């Protein structure tokens, strides 16, 4: 495993990878959703670190491509197709969308996790991409990894271990 190259996908970022030694990682997802897209035939993948559900929430400034679910999914699909993937073969796996501050209760802004989850599902549906596995919701953080060589997707948590999606 030590010869693999871990590449962090930060808040709002989108990364495409096509080399077998590459592993894309969203570290410490809370209310954000990490979305892994993969074409198993040409072995090209992408990861998006979605922060907010909808680009209409923007402030008119230039936003990173993965910041919003709607624009993030669109940009990721376009980038994958550019890199040689087939739109119809793409499969999606996603994790995150937690409600970290459930007990705070009173601030609806902080339940953005559920809205991100819904928005990612809807954006995938619009692009007719299958969401084959997901680990969303709850009140805890997650780290999501996509192994480009195999398309394997791992979710790790604190105190709940690691599992494959």
């Amino acid at each position: 495993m030590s010869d693999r190259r871990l590449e962090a996908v930060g808040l709002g970022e989108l990364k495409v990878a096509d080399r077998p030694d590459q592993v894309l990682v969203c570290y410490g997802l809370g209310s954000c959703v990490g979305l892994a897209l993969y074409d198993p035939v040409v072995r090209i993948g992408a990861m998006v670190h979605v922060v907010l559900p909808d680009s209409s929430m923007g402030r008119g400034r230039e936003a990173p491509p993965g910041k919003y679910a709607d624009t993030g999914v669109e940009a990721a699909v376009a980038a994958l197709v550019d890199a040689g993937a087939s739109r119809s073969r793409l499969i999606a796996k996603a994790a995150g969308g937690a409600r970290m501050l459930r007990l705070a209760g009173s601030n609806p802004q902080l339940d953005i996790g559920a809205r991100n989850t819904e928005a990612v599902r809807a954006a995938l549906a619009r692009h007719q991409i299958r969401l084959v596995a997901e680990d969303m919701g709850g009140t805890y953080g997650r780290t999501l990894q996509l192994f480009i060589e195999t398309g394997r997707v791992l979710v790790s948590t604190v105190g709940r271990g690691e599992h494959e999606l």
Partner: protein
Amino acid sequence: MKLQPSQWTALEQMVTQALAESSRSLSQMTTGEIRLDAPQLSFVPLRELPGVAGGPDHVVTAVYVGIEGELQGHVILLFQPKEARALVDLLLGHPAGTCRELDELGRSALAEVGNICGSAFMNAIADRSGLEVKPTPPVLLEDMAGAILQTVATDLLLTGDEALVIATGFNGAVPGHFLLMPNTESMARLITTLEAIR
């Protein structure tokens, strides 16, 4: 956030006053001497916040207190888990190294620290600005720094880019961070208030 030297001084004074008030309340609560160390203030871009705690997948102990009223925002008290346990021992008057896992008592002691310090910050702001602000009940979390901070950063990303990070410590022995994150409108109000102080 660009502050004039006079605004910066006023902000430091406000924070120092809040920490002094926190020290007083904590000492009363614990019947021991709890002293918050001299603060170091900086503005940190929201996307770099997880870095102050060792990175996004680094486990941290956090106490969250929301700011409500005429200013809105978030206060987070952030510790390495080891330091949080050391603080529990300090608060409960136990020998160092007693607290290994956070039990009910330890959790409520830390939550109370968040409550006291959060209230002190809000009182300091209210004293200087005349604005009415109040804290929400504290919430204690132990999880990945990224997951905790991202959730709050997400709320702020709608309106702002930076958080005020106050590095301090307890009795010179237990380092911790306060993250003071008013939304942009509230930050502007706060700065206006600081401008009025000479």
